[in-house]
């Protein structure tokens, strides 16, 4: 049997079609995610602008709707400055790691019934793993830049992300116990039996811990210490410019969307809603995600920033005990019922 025959087997064609379908799905999801991220920045600037008695972007296009595109084009053509003493290969690769880690979480999230790129049985674990991986991008960018501000930012960020990782992981245990699965589609389906088709009511405590930890994981206000503008100027990406800066920016926003998506699928019933919206199976999911993203912005416009030690105590002394308590309560409740 020649090599040719081993490669071209009767079912090779099927496999190619399968891969083609997967690729198509991936392209759709990635393109949709990118579009959402672009307009998430516009949405942020507009909504925070209006909260702060100003208008936000108004110049590019009507009401500034083309602003994200203008920003993208600008950042794409900007000079890519690499500090002379930077650890070059690491400096090059850090934003890519950040971006890939943020994007890959999207591969296990079901956007509507039956539409998921990889329906694996440990979906939730995969997401947690990928969100930890994102910290690598931050840490090594802080290290490679050879600047004190970025180094401090990277250290802060690594400590923060791993601290809140635990609280986040533990807060999801309650959901796993109730659903009896780590497959995200199963978790969504299991929620149908509960009031309003959501876990948020029986898992109130877990939901709270998850949201706080999620905001901290994505380095958003009031936990934006790694990039605290008034202290560390921009934190870990202070030396990055142009397209690399844009990639960190993108990964932060994708991270935000991913955390919102997990919150929606694990606590708020995913794609299901009180009634079905015809022809747009992902309508409920999107609405819920937009709500969470707005919530992020709302918090950003409202709250001052935590101090480093306060942030650590909040994570270790409040959220972790609460998450453990949530597990015990869920266990007892499940045994009783």
């Amino acid at each position, binding site marked *: 049997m020649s090599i040719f025959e081993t490669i071209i087997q009767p079912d090779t064609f099927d496999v190619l079609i399968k*891969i083609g379908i*997967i*690729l198509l*799905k*991936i392209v759709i999801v*990635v393109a949709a995610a990118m579009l959402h991220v672009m307009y998430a920045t516009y949405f942020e600037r507009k909504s925070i602008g209006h909260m702060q008695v100003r208008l936000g972007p108004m110049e590019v296009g009507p009401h500034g709707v083309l602003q994200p595109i203008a920003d993208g084009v600008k950042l*794409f*053509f*900007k*000079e*890519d*400055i*690499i*500090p*002379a*003493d930077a650890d070059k290969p690491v400096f090059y690769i850090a934003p*890519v790691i950040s*971006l*890939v880690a943020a*994007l*890959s979480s999207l591969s*296990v999230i079901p956007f509507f019934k039956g539409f998921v790129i*990889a329906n694996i049985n440990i979906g939730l674990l*995969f997401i947690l793993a990928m969100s930890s991986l994102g910290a690598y991008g931050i840490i090594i960018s802080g290290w490679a830049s*050879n*600047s*004190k*501000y970025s*180094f401090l930012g990277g*250290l802060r960020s*690594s*400590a923060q992300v*791993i*601290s809140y*990782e*635990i609280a986040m*992981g*533990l807060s999801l*245990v*309650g959901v*796993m*116990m109730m659903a*009896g*699965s*780590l497959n995200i589609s199963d978790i969504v389906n299991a929620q149908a039996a509960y009031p309003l088709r959501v876990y948020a009511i029986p898992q109130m405590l877990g939901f709270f811990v998850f949201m706080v930890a999620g905001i901290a994981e994505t380095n958003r206000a009031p936990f934006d210490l790694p990039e605290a503008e008034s202290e560390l*100027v921009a934190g870990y990406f202070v030396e990055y410019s142009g*397209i690399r800066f844009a*990639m960190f920016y993108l990964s932060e926003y994708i991270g935000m969307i991913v955390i919102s998506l997990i919150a929606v699928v694990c606590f708020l019933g995913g794609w299901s809603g009180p009634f079905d919206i015809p022809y747009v199976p992902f309508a409920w999911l999107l609405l819920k995600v937009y709500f969470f993203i707005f919530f992020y912005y709302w918090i950003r416009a409202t709250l001052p920033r935590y101090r480093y*030690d306060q942030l*650590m*105590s909040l994570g*270790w*002394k409040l959220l*972790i*005990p609460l998450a*453990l308590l949530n*597990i*015990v309560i869920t*266990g007892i409740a*499940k045994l009783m019922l």
Partner: protein
Amino acid sequence: MPGKYIPSDYLPILIFLMVATAVGLGVLIAGSIFRLKRPYPEKLMPYESGNLPVGEPRYRFSVRFYIIAMLFVVFDVEAVFLYPWAVVFGSIGFYAFVEMMVFIVILVVGYVYAWKKEAFNWD
């Protein structure tokens, strides 16, 4: 085929990772063709609020970070233990609950110890 397990469920993830990396690198490479490059020494200096940098930025950092890293390992492993337990909890029931309570209590003892040793304090 025996001995040849192909995790076909994970194939999409592999492809996704490849696509994501390609997107990241592609944007970088495509950009490098178009963008300008006019470096000069001052531009390539690391940011230090407009001053010449003093000393080595990659300094030896506080031991606190190692403590946090160790605590992370302990608690994250605990969380990983909890996941499979949580999944099968419904089918095993009371016995699993007691088992896990013992585990959690042991962990809480360690947690209280760390708290008393002020491992969670930063100032």
